[in-house]
């Protein structure tokens, strides 16, 4: 197990390092002068020179990379051209919207998926099973941003239950409008993100529970007189949670991508909206900082999921791999 953990740590460090190179390298592909691209052709020569100096464009590329990575390690992501504020500050501010949104959608998807998956497994081949499979098929087929638009149409424009967009009291850091209105504004976006995730998780739960139900210890428990519901909840569900947790962890990267789009549907001032606006504003410093942070987040979550799964079930981590010839 220790060897596995060390191997995973080394792989994490290598991936983080490579990810930083990729983000840095891709933004070097900007044709022509990046400072000119950001400021436009009407920029004053001294403003251009100042930005070139701030971006380190007058230095060799390796120096620039080392300087940027060094800053990254100390939480310094540069200064946004549009907002004239440190990118780290902007990110921290926007996380106050994106993190609760992601967390809320994870909670909703799990709360929806586990009972549905259990129900489908318990009713295998019957109406309940087909209904859940139908929901799952529909859920994975509908993009979250379309679900978001349909939710706005129904709950905001028709029923007037929820706001169609925006975030109350967004005048600076924190939840200026209070917890209630903020959650009210986050519920529809979270639901839009959660429905496709719940569809996938419900299918995974159903499969995992069915696989567990086919195992010997379940048959033994039934033979000893344990009831169907108790077997499902006490024996099948806990064993099925490892694959469910694995998929939940892997869904984080889809959640990140989904949040970028859904935040824009609801004009929520989160990280995704900041990234999208930064592209429009040609603020490459913000784009670079946000993308690298999101990538690091995904890498970290994947590593945590790997380690958690290895701790819960050490067999795969210790089993040898490779071609047998």
């Amino acid at each position, binding site marked *: 197990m220790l060897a596995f953990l060390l191997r995973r740590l080394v792989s994490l460090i290598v991936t983080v390092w490579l*990810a930083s190179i990729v983000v840095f390298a891709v933004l070097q592909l900007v044709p022509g002068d990046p400072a000119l691209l950001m400021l436009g052709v009407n920029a004053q020569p001294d403003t251009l020179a100042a930005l070139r100096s701030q971006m380190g464009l007058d230095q060799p590329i390796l120096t620039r990379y080392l300087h940027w990575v060094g800053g990254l390690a100390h939480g310094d992501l540069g200064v946004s051209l549009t907002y004239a504020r440190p990118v780290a500050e902007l990110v921290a501010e926007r996380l106050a919207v994106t993190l609760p949104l992601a967390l809320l959608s994870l909670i909703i998807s799990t709360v929806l998926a586990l009972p549905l998956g259990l129900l489908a497994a318990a009713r295998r081949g019957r109406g309940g099973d087909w209904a859940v499979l139908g929901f799952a098929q*529909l859920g994975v087929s509908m*993009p979250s941003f379309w679900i978001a638009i349909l939710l706005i149409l129904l709950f905001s424009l028709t029923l007037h239950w929820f706001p169609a967009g925006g975030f109350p009291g967004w005048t600076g850091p924190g939840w200026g409008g209070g917890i209630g209105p903020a959650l009210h504004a986050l519920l529809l976006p979270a639901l839009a993100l959660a429905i496709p995730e719940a569809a996938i998780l419900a299918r995974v739960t159903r*499969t995992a529970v069915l696989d567990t139900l086919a195992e010997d210890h379940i048959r033994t428990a039934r033979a000893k007189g344990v009831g169907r519901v108790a077997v499902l909840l006490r024996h099948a569900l806990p064993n099925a949670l490892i694959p469910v947790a694995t998929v939940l962890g892997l869904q984080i990267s889809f959640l990140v991508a989904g949040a970028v789009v859904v935040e824009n549907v609801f004009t929520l001032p989160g990280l995704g909206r900041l990234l999208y606006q930064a592209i429009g504003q040609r603020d490459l410093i913000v784009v670079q900082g946000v993308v690298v942070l999101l990538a690091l987040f*995904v890498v970290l979550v*994947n590593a945590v999921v790997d380690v958690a799964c290895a701790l819960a079930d050490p067999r795969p981590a210790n089993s040898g791999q*490779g071609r047998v*010839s």
Partner: protein
Amino acid sequence: MRRKLPLSLHLGAALTLLMVAMALLSLLWTPYPAEQVRVVARLKPPSAAHWLGTDHFGRDVLSMIMVGARNSLAVGAAAVGLGLLGGVPLGLLAAALGRWGDEVVARLGDLVFAFPAVLTAILLTAALGAGAINVVVALALFNAAVLARVTRGAALAVWRRPFVGAALALGRGPLSATLVHVLPNIAGIVVVQATILFAVAIVNEAALSYLGLGIQPPNPSWGKMLGDAQTFLFTAPLQAVFPGVAIALTVMGLTMLGDGLRDWLDPRHRTSGVM
């Protein structure tokens, strides 16, 4: 005995063929030219003249959806095709080389998975500008990483089977064994995965076009149509429904096709398919 084809395979193939037929038909015929602007006929509800109504420029929505199908499927096909070209050889190589090759593919996979396809596309757009090509590149990179992993896993299992060992003992080289024995035995798994990735590519393309980073106007795309429709949600709500239905039907067709193929190729998975 000939195995019965799963229902999901029938339904998936029918839906996919329907969308492909619509895309191909748009090459020859659409009710109106998809880019024809008629401001006097803007935001019209469905009627005999415009079956799905018109958008804010008076363009015929059905015609736009038909051409959008062509664009979406073209982007999806290119992203999956390039993914196959990159991922399958890499996965086969990793399996043939054993531990060292495994390590390289695993690390490359970790790196690509650090960037969800939408994030890669955003990064490329920031550097090179918006457009379908950047979307294809971003999606193809992600697909190649997934396909390399799937190919590697499936190929490793085939390498362990006795007939491959026998072929090697009889003097067949690793390259020849890979092409003659390994590749045909993993083709089914790869095709299933490619079908699912096609569906994922359609969703991602639509999301990026919704943000204005994908297929560029005046070329119609389902995602962009939804983005435009959101502005007129109160006056013309149906405009936000039809392109979404087109996306959902295409994705549903492809995922059901993938699930059905998997069930057919490996009946142990039947009704327990997991994306």
